[in-house]
């Protein structure tokens, strides 16, 4: 627990959160998901999910396609709002506030809970402008500060050394793996609390893939990370906690070690050992 005083609310938050969903872990819960159900029209994509997502940990969401894990992660920063037929019930408590409330400032929320997508999606602008896009919108005009944030974010995303000489070239000229790390850097520049990664490496080659994994392990020091992945071994390598989704239910949520060595549910074991999905 190494955070400092610039987010004073968090200690208070910890006390407020009911410990009900917390597993045997010493970490603080940063997102408390309570009875979360998500509907697309009449279809229930996530069914009454409960999960305490921990601070400064990597939480992996696994399960076959269509099991609801992407829907789940996209509800955490309200990206599901983009789908007109979607509707959420239940609560996701973040800093003592249910972020599913109607009167949430979604824009502010998304700058605290950043998201990186499956397909690298840099803007067709320069590398530099990709990172400053959101900063400038938030009123940061000071060139020196911007330069500094660009460098810091790129360093954190382990991309600085590769691009420092061509910051003003188009981001489209980067390789897929570099583009994805740029997307991560762009998100980090916003200083989010939580990082949501929706299959961040599935569209990349194995080398880029392992770079992203390395990066995730480093970022864990400063951020709480939720990652959706199809790749079992990736989940076992990078995550501290793992949740197994099946048909919209969370079948099992526990320490990654336990899930991969000694799952309590037969279905989890079947999935992990590759019998379906």
């Amino acid at each position, binding site marked *: 627990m190494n955070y400092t005083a610039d*987010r004073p609310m968090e200690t208070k938050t910890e006390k407020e959160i009911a410990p009900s969903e917390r597993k045997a872990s010493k970490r603080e819960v940063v997102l408390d998901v309570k009875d979360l159900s998500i509907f697309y029209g009449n279809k229930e994509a996530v069914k009454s999910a409960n999960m305490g997502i921990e601070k400064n940990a990597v939480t992996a969401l696994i399960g076959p396609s269509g099991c609801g894990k992407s829907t789940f992660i996209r509800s955490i920063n309200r990206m599901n709002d983009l789908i007109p037929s979607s509707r959420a019930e239940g609560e996701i408590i973040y800093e003592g506030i249910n972020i599913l409330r109607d009167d*949430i400032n979604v824009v*502010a929320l998304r700058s605290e809970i950043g998201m990186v997508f499956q397909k690298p999606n840099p803007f067709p602008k320069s590398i530099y402008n990709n990172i400053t896009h959101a900063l400038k919108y938030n009123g940061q005009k000071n060139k020196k500060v911007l330069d500094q944030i660009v460098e810091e974010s790129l360093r954190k995303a382990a991309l600085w050394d590769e691009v420092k000489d061509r910051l003003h070239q188009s981001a489209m000229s980067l390789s897929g793996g570099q583009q994805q790390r740029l997307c991560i850097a762009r998100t980090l520049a916003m200083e989010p609390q939580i990082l949501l990664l929706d299959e961040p490496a599935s569209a990349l080659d194995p080398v880029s893939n392992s770079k992203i994994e390395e990066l995730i392990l480093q970022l864990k020091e400063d951020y709480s990370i939720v990652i959706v992945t199809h790749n079992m071994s990736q989940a076992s390598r990078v995550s501290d906690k793992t949740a197994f989704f099946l048909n919209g239910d969370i079948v099992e949520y526990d320490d990654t070690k336990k899930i991969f060595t000694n799952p309590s549910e037969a279905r989890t074991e079947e999935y992990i050992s590759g019998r379906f999905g």
Partner: protein
Amino acid sequence: MAKASVTPSAEERLILTKKNRRWDEVRGRSLVTICAIIMIVATIAVTIFLAQKGLQSFTVNNINPIAYLTSTNWNPVGENASFGIFPFIFGSLAVTFLSALIAAPLGIGAAIFMSEIAPKFGKKFLQPVIELLVGIPSVVYGFIGLVVLVPLVRDNLPGIGFSLFAGVIVLTVMILPTVTTIATDAMRSLPNSLRQGSLALGATRWQTIRKVLIPAALPSLLTAIVLGMARAFGEALAVQMVIGNTRDLPGSIFDTSATLTTIVTLNIGHTTYGSIENNTLWSMGLILLIISFVFIFIVRYLSGRRKI
């Protein structure tokens, strides 16, 4: 790197308030919503103003609407003025249906050519040709009709050249690209499985087109024809330049004739605003408006059928 000396509480940051609301979003949304409202207002304004003006010949001048629509006697000037617009309605309908009758097979044929027979050549060459045909202004079509078609008809066919027939031909040429474009989209959007399924059963390409593809695309093809008809019905200047603009019912297709649009075009500028004759012209405008709405509803009905 602290954002500010005093960090606002989660409540202050995350719950939407006047203070943390992004006003650019509110302004932007309002701006585009106003533009959407302007479109509604424009449509309603066109309808209401033309309806109000177009009904004056019945409400102010007490013309009998039934007689107005069915009488064949159009004699708007003088003591015994008579306002029967049936010949013009007839003319409008005649040019619309006859031109659609010619343009439909040609347009659908061209669409099938582009989607089924020679897709590559169709896309690369025929498509631009058709787009250019769409782009030629209607006065140019009318002018060419006037200086080429009318003399040609006069020299080779009965009548004086200016005729219903000339109007039909000019309109056919004008709506052909419209019909072709929409029909091509319809044919191209058919799933390939339809073609493969039929060809696999040993059907020839023509059998596949006739028995499978055309029935499957029928509602969309009808839409293409209806939109072509809507264009023909509303076209004014090109028809006006070749049809002769006489007030009597044509006895044959080679007789001169007139349509609602041509009479309105020719006379609305020469009659006194507010006079009976002027008002009857506005009533024709209203009829044009109503019929163009009817075409839209037919198209909507057809597109509803398409989904099934």
